[in-house]
């Protein structure tokens, strides 16, 4: 499809502001001005609308069809949250206004929203305090790691290492490194963190362990109490990666079972849209002893019931975002929690787990399930046997699903399972939808066994077919030549 740049015709305009009385030359000397006008699309509004409308039809969202992308929690994004985030009362305020003299008076709505959202997250997770500042999950991980570092530094602990299980998301070690830690990997046993493997590397230098629970195989970490006990002995903290939080709402609270820090991905658990890759929000919760280190400018409630920004945090790590994080995203997450309430959030978790187990059970005669027991909100299957038998890989199954109009599951993650396919149906899908998907998936697998070639060339009916990624990396055409 033609790019918007290639539709450009010199002099064509769409949404032109009025003509200024003075042009830029009046205000800037020539040597501070650019020589050439920027090459941006010169198109009509109709061109823009048609172009992006057409482009959208080449995309796939939860609104299009089922999206069982494991580890991503592609649940339905309720439309009312978009309405709320677009209320002019919310979109208008400049974030610095609340920091000015008397400014808090004029931003009480936003401040109360932030405060109440953080309070609700505390109750949901059992943590003592939350910050809304982190702008995405990985940013939340970094925040958590910095808070951990600040805590140990303040306490005079000499801590240099963070332990990450091999099934962890790749961002865990990457974030730990950015907080100045050395990363120690430990191998899983039976799909779970192995207390003995942990014991083997646990010493006084360990600042924290980063865990995902249920882990990225969709399994509950049964050794959690033992792990907590071990860590306490060396004053190491326990970090909860919230990627899989959709599996435990109302069933377990992170703070209650000994986790010290948590980040949540609101675009996973709390119904905010992924937007094709962002924006997200990654609020971080901590236990009370870590609260002093949270990012500064914290929403707070005064004795008279008004809200303000608390800047009296001498031990704060500083700022993770210029102001208070992705406010509008957090707002949607808060609106989601308000609508569902405790009961609704619990039910979401229950149905997510129900759906995952139903899929697992229906698939177990067709695909190898390495850990074939009750799973949480997602599970991992493997095409390795299929690959051995007839050459069909996880990738081929994924492409076969695309051809049938479904989205594919996550493939080749976690790295510890060969040819893996990770399914996460979420609670918002009905039995009918799951059955429709499963019928097609089983048909693909069975057809693949008989005629693997047919699958190797899939998909045929998508806007483009399998793309040459090597060519992309080699030639590196990263912009449109104009």
């Amino acid at each position, binding site marked *: 499809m033609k790019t918007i740049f290639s539709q450009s015709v010199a002099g064509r305009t769409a949404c032109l502001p009025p003509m200024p009385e003075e042009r830029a030359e009046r205000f800037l000397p020539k040597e501070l001005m650019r020589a050439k006008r920027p090459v941006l699309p010169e198109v009509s509004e109709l061109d823009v609308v048609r172009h992006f409308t057409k482009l959208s039809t080449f995309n796939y969202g939860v*609104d299009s069809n089922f999206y069982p992308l494991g580890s991503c929690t592609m649940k339905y994004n*309720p439309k009312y949250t978009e309405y709320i985030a677009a209320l002019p009362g919310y979109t208008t305020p400049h974030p610095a206004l609340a920091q000015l003299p008397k400014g808090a008076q004029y931003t009480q709505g936003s401040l109360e929203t932030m405060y109440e959202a953080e309070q609700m997250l505390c109750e949901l997770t059992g943590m003592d305090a939350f910050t809304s500042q982190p702008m995405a999950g990985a940013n939340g991980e970094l925040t958590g790691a910095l808070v951990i570092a600040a805590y140990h530094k303040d306490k005079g602990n000499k801590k240099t290492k963070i332990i990450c299980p091999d099934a962890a998301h790749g961002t865990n070690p990457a974030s730990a490194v950015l907080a100045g830690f050395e990363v120690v990997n430990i191998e899983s046993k039976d799909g779970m963190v192995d207390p003995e493997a942990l014991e083997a590397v646990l010493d006084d230098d360990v600042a924290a362990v980063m865990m995902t629970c249920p882990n990225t195989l969709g399994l509950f970490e049964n050794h959690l109490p033992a792990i907590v006990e071990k860590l306490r002995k060396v004053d190491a903290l326990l970090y909860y990666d919230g990627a899989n939080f959709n599996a435990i709402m109302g*069933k377990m609270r992170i703070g209650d079972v000994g986790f010290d820090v948590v980040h949540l991905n609101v675009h996973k658990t709390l119904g905010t849209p992924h937007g094709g890759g962002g924006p997200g929000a990654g609020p971080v919760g901590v236990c009370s002893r870590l609260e002093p280190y949270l990012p500064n400018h914290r929403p707070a409630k005064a004795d008279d019931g008004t809200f303000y920004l608390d800047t009296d945090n001498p031990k704060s790590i500083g700022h993770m975002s210029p102001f208070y994080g992705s406010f*509008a995203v957090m707002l949607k997450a808060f609106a989601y929690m308000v609508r569902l309430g405790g009961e609704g*959030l619990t039910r979401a978790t229950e149905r997510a787990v129900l759906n995952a187990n139903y899929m697992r059970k229906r698939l177990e005669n067709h695909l190898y399930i390495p850990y074939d027991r009750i799973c949480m909100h997602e599970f991992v299957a493997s095409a390795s046997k299929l690959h051995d038998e007839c050459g069909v890989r996880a990738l081929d199954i994924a492409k076969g699903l695309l051809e049938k109009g479904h989205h594919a599951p996550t493939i080749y993650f976690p790295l510890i399972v060969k040819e893996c396919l990770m399914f996460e149906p979420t609670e918002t899908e009905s039995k009918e939808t799951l059955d429709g998907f499963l019928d097609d998936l089983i048909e693909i697998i069975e057809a693949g066994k008989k005629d693997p070639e047919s699958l190797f060339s899939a998909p045929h009916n998508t806007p483009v077919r399998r793309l040459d990624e090597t060519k992309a990396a080699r030639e590196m055409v990263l912009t449109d030549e104009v």
Partner: protein
Amino acid sequence: MPYTPHTAEETQAMLDVIGVRTIEDLFADIPADMRPKSFDLPQGLSEMETCAYFEQLAGKNKTGLVSFLGAGFYNHYIPKAIDNIVGRGEFYTAYTPYQPESSQGTLQAIFEFQTAVCNLLEMDVANASVYDGGTAIFEAMMMAVRAGRKRKKIVIDESVNPIYRVMLDTYTDNIDIDIVVVPHTEGLSNVDALKAAIDADCAAVVVQNPNFFGNVQDFTDLFEHAHANKALGIISVYPVMQSVMKTPGEMGADIAVAEAQSLGQPLSFGGPYLGVMSCTKKMIRQIPGRIVGRTEDVDGKTGYVLTLQAREQHIRRAKATSNICSNQALCALRALIHMSLLGPEGLIRTAELSMERAHYLADRLTMIDNVELLNDAPFGNEFAIRLPINAEEAIEALMDKGFVTGFPAGRYYEGMDNVLLVACTELHSFEQIGVFTELLGGIL
């Protein structure tokens, strides 16, 4: 219950297939003593009640204020077509484009966004965006440190937005990077001092244009000096003003970053915003985050994919170039549509209308006794004035009259308690400026 479609019968049928009796059986792994100690969340509300609650909350913000507050974040007009397009479920309910056959919409949009960024900044390569302007500077510094190998020092101009400098301190607190701040001179970058700070340990020098005080400068010379000393030049810019200002490319910057909130993103009390990152071809292997490349499918048809993924955490883990694993895809789409709707002429006019108003305001304000510009250097749509009183006082005095006077420089700069930063955009009317100057004059 909302958003869980299961009827009792279906739930039972599914439990039967799984082979358990109740839903609770599925949670048997979580022992009783690990169950929630409390779970006192409020009762859920209907959609109607939820919306009423938030309408009431949003109503507690005052929206009729006339605000001259900028400080790097500006209230520009957002064309209405943007919301219509990004409201399409195919865009905003999609995930990261990991299955390119089903994600050409997002992928091509990012490719076009990268093109627009490169063209606006006159740089070679752009990524798919990062969280915001502050993280963009941080990631740029990290690029420089990686490229500079043993060099650990970053020289940064004090007139770089201090809101970001607080972030940079936070982000670099535990890693082996040494940030050296070179003081400004009456709101202007001290280029000589910056040059002097560039030594053999310096990985990069970081400046901002227009700087925090709104002044526009040329850093060509500085970047040349940096290059001569094997250091890199990093510049942070303001996309709207960039439509008329000398570009990072023209100045010879190695990495150019920006907060692109001004391109189609509402202020929304702090976010989501949009960090733009671009660099020269030489730096391409260092740039973090997602990048989309053009390629062909098996039939030879043009298509787009995420490329250079080998740098990312899901492959590199602890050795990744960054921990960033998302971009602000929908914000980038907004910015792309914004730039497409305005076009070059529209973006230039936006800059000019904003400057026109700011200069008119500066003229009016400096006619007040004892009010003077901080310096005589050129500025864009924001400028600093020295008042006869504490800037915080001036702000407080006008707030209840419905005017937000500006940002008090004293918050971040010693000795500048009387200095006020004032910004205009195309949305200010000359009338509002007139009323404002009279009110401010009245209290001085």
